[in-house]
């Protein structure tokens, strides 16, 4: 069973690179949805291994909220406000982003080795993947100029945290997981709402044009 979980964790990490190089917002949303499916699969596998019911509930809610609902909301937003075929701009170009992204992934694995881990369901390699995904998510949020791209970056970081939660805190009560899901969902909707407003008042969702407030 170890092999399955490593492969799935690898897929989660690869999906992050998909988002890292995506030029169009629609591609980034697809990458996020794909990553969330992989994450739901990880939850499912750990449920089959351990037989803890709350992991099955997590798998189902991850699939429903993160793989279907949030991407659907984002796709609608993209259709209505941002031209979905438009290429977005970067602060960091694709080649350097790939290079830095690889560096950040390595950093994730190095940090994971430093943490004393009591193995519950998932082992150290998955811990490395989850820290790498959190770091890459923050990097995407920083490296992109487009507000919708920054939102997908934060969502990716949050997926990394969910995986990290499975490694470090699988024993946490389910209510906590639900509270987190609620935060993510409402947060994504509020940020989507702000992006729509941005398109309305500023005429674009490029945050490098938001420079009125200084000092």
């Amino acid at each position: 069973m170890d092999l399955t979980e490593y492969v799935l964790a690898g897929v989660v990490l690869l999906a992050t690179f998909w988002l890292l190089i995506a030029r169009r917002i629609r591609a980034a949303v697809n990458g996020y949805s794909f990553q969330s499916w992989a994450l739901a699969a990880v939850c499912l596998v750990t449920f089959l291994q351990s037989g803890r019911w709350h992991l099955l509930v997590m798998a189902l809610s991850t699939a429903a909220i993160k793989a279907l609902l949030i991407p659907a909301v984002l796709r609608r937003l993209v259709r209505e406000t941002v031209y979905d075929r438009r290429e977005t701009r970067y602060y960091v170009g694709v080649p350097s982003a790939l290079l830095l992204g690889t560096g950040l992934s390595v950093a994730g694995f190095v940090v994971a080795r430093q943490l004393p881990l009591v193995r519950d369901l998932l082992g150290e390699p998955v811990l490395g993947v989850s820290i790498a995904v959190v770091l890459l998510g923050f990097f995407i949020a920083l490296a992109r100029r487009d507000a919708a791209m920054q939102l997908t970056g934060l969502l990716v970081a949050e997926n990394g945290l969910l995986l990290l939660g499975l490694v470090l805190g699988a024993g946490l009560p389910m209510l906590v997981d639900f509270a987190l899901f609620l935060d993510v969902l409402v947060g994504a909707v509020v940020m989507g709402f702000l992006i729509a407003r941005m398109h309305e008042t500023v005429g674009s969702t490029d945050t490098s044009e938001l420079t009125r407030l200084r000092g």
Partner: protein
Amino acid sequence: MSQTLIPVLLAVPLAAAAVTWLARPPAVLYAVGAAAHVTILALAITLLTGVVGGAEPHAFGRWLVLDHLGGVVLLIVATVGFTSAVYSIGYLHHELTERAVGRGELRRYFALLHVFVFTMLLSALAGNLGLLWTAIAGTTIVSAPLVDFYGSREPLEAAWKYIVLTTAGSMVALLGYLVLYQAGVHVLGVSYDFSFSVLSAVAPRLPAAAAATAFLLVLVGFGAKAGLAPMHTWLPDAHSQAPSPVCALLSGVELNCAMLGILRAFALTAPAAGAGRLRLALLAFGVLSMLVAVVFLVSQRDFKRLLAYSSIEQMGLVAVGVGAGVPLAVSGAMLQMVNHAFSKSLMFFATGNLLLRFRTRAIGSVAGLVHDMPATAILLIVGVLALAGAPPFSLFVSEFSIVSGAAVAHQWAPALIVAALLAVGFLALVWPFNRMAFSAPPGSAGQGTTVNPIVLLPAYLSLVVVVGLGFWVPSPLHALLSGAARTLAP
């Protein structure tokens, strides 16, 4: 009785939000808002009296708990929440009659305000660290649409920066709490109740390295939300662009909720990681925040941004107080949180009245207030002296306790730097407001509309508290503050 009081307390703002969402006439929105916040205040004071009397009210097992540290924050949320709600009524009614906002926006405002207060009450009452994180992260999500309330370009920019940076910060803090959970696994086994009471019982036996990592992650993450430099860059924007009553809540209350997240982590990790190391980190962030804030205070031309930078300075001072570690400084830091909440909300109410009348935030465009708006001018002058920490006001007492506490702890360098920064900050804060109040009135005095008296009432209530606390700290409040200080500096 407390078993039911805590859930009722949390249900009141949610019920108020639901009624607000369904109601149409502004008068109903105002009545519901005022009634809800009076109820919250009364329930909170009942609960706090119990805490001071030695009880530890709890509900739903250990999910909701009220202890001394949470009690300090609950006191701030309930009191400043009440004054801000009353001020909101006057402020938004003025905006409504001026046609600056519509009826639909008014409804949205009050519904969000109540949910915002709910998330802050939950932060104070959460007994489980997962719930605490959710509540604190939730405060941002609910208040970002309030920052964007006026909907033009600048508020939108402020709201976007606010939600992106503080959400990223909250995620780092969650990383810290997960590492803390894992540290607990080493002692308690893979599945345990992630609440303070369970963890604090085994706190000295947690693995030291993991505990220290957990605290640093929470400090950096929620430090971003509490406005500690260098993660503060969103704060002056968000706290100046929001409507004034929201600014009072953001600056006076919400920052304390994020600080509570840091202090809870500190209390749980210090026994294992070594309090000295963790305090050093708090001192470093605190002094840096004060330094950055004072530099920007001196060069500020916008009076709401001036108050926002002052919040960074004051939260930095709270971090310094806890970082100094001796009981004198730590209880000073607790008093500082309360004092700052009242005096900063007072200043946002007073400057809100200026905004309603003059429609400008530029310090240079306002003059001769003592002739033009005497009631507001008194608020501004007394308020700014209190906020800057002039004796006999209560902020002088808490600032003095923190600085002398740092000196007692032989933290000479922080004590001297902080004292110098407070002196410069004092002048940078008092001078602009002094000019706005006393300089010769502009030729075109008397322009703009008069402001209704409801906006003066909560401001004068805060003023009475700010002046009163300088002369006399009631003994239950003193017990609450020193009880909270004991959990941070045993």
